């Protein structure tokens, strides 16, 4: 265990140096080793690819490691305990924020839903959690930070939180409990007595490393393909090509982006690099943001899974409210920037 920490301690400076010298290394590689013709479409595409892939991977490794450690402090059981019996609004705010840090996989959405509802977490509060958890995740934030900069990452996170809070609040206010399948309320969920044992910090480091292994193994291929497509757009698509389609002047672009985005199923890793390239070619930030949120936050497979516990009407209401929230966010950003 000591060895592990020591290796990490040595790796950090290596990480910092690599991250900071990536541009000159890339330029040297492309211009001096490959000796490619400057400013040609192909050269610029390749330069983009060689620079962005390692950059995003470096960021991903570090952030996933840190988030893995943070997540080891939160468990669904603990989150449920915090949220039990909380009032609307305060509960929605808490649930959305906990949705970001609690470990969550959409394949666990149903057991989590049952566990929450059964132990008295209000329906609207549960929805705030279920909206925030998939939409705001470390992979999306890394890619946004790496490719768009910290301002956009922060914008995405804060507007995502607001959408989760307000949508959950509205669903709570509408009193839709009758649209939950009856059997849900008959489930007698067991309660795991999670012993609040003191976990040594070294175990948390292991948890961080496990998270890196699991997540990087899962998303690296999406990142490479996504950045590959993005690099192609970057080099070959003419400037301002997207302005007419996804630009500010095209008022209809925001709802269209959401309508296309909802049934699309991709993870953040695949979609963000492509969207970044589109932004560069004249698409507007609000439209791009709306598209990303609808692809990442609202996914068809997840809503289909929810059909097991929710009546169809509630699913439509849920998707409708979130989609409207995303569209509003899109318009606001197109208006401001």
């Amino acid at each position, binding site marked *: 265990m000591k060895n592990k920490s020591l290796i990490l301690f040595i790796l950090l400076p290596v990480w910092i140096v690599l991250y900071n010298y990536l541009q000159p290394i890339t330029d040297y590689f492309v211009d001096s080793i490959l000796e490619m013709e400057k400013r040609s479409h192909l050269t610029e595409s390749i330069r983009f690819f060689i620079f962005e892939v390692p950059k995003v991977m470096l960021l991903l490794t570090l952030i996933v490691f840190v988030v893995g450690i943070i997540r080891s402090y939160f468990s669904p059981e603990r989150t449920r305990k915090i949220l039990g019996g909380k009032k609307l609004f305060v509960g929605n705010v808490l649930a959305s924020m906990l949705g970001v840090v609690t470990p969550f*996989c959409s394949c*666990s959405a149903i*057991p989590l839903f049952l566990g929450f509802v059964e132990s008295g977490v209000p329906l609207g509060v549960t929805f705030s959690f279920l909206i925030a958890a998939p939409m705001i995740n470390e992979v999306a934030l890394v890619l946004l930070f790496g490719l768009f900069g910290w301002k956009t990452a922060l914008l995405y996170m804060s507007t995502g939180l607001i959408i989760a809070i307000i949508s959950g609040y509205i669903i709570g206010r509408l009193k839709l409990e009758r649209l939950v399948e009856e059997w849900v309320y008959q489930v007698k969920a067991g309660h795991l007595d999670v012993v609040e044992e003191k976990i040594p910090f070294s175990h948390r480091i292991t948890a961080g490393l496990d998270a890196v292994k699991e997540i990087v193994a899962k998303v690296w291929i999406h990142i490479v393909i996504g950045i590959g497509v993005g690099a192609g757009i970057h080099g070959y698509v003419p400037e301002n090509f997207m302005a007419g389609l996804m630009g500010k002047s095209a008022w209809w672009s925001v709802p269209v982006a959401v309508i296309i985005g909802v049934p699309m199923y991709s993870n953040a890793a695949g979609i963000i690099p492509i969207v970044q390239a589109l932004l560069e070619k004249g698409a507007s930030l609000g439209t791009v943001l709306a598209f990303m949120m609808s692809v990442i936050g609202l996914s068809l497979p997840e809503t289909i899974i929810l059909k097991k516990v929710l009546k169809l009407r509630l699913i439509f209401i849920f998707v409708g409210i979130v989609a409207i929230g995303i569209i509003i966010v899109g318009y606001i950003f197109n208006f401001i920037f």
Partner: protein
Amino acid sequence: MLEIKVLGVGCTNCVNLEKLCREVVAENAIEANIQKVTDFKEIAGFGIMSTPGLVINGKVVLSGKLPTKSTLTHWLMDALAEEETK
């Protein structure tokens, strides 16, 4: 005879956990009945909120992640020892 239940629907880790269980059981020649539980009511009944979950002889030993092979072997051996002392 150990009663092992792997709780979870569809996720990759759930499939991997079942595989790992079968592997460890076969390698150590443990007598066990491995069952995959996909019914949400039953999963919720165990108090599991993140899958995969693992239940050995009615006791929840893990939820939400894949154990390492050595940890799993350890759990199964412990459960066996407990059974023998009964």
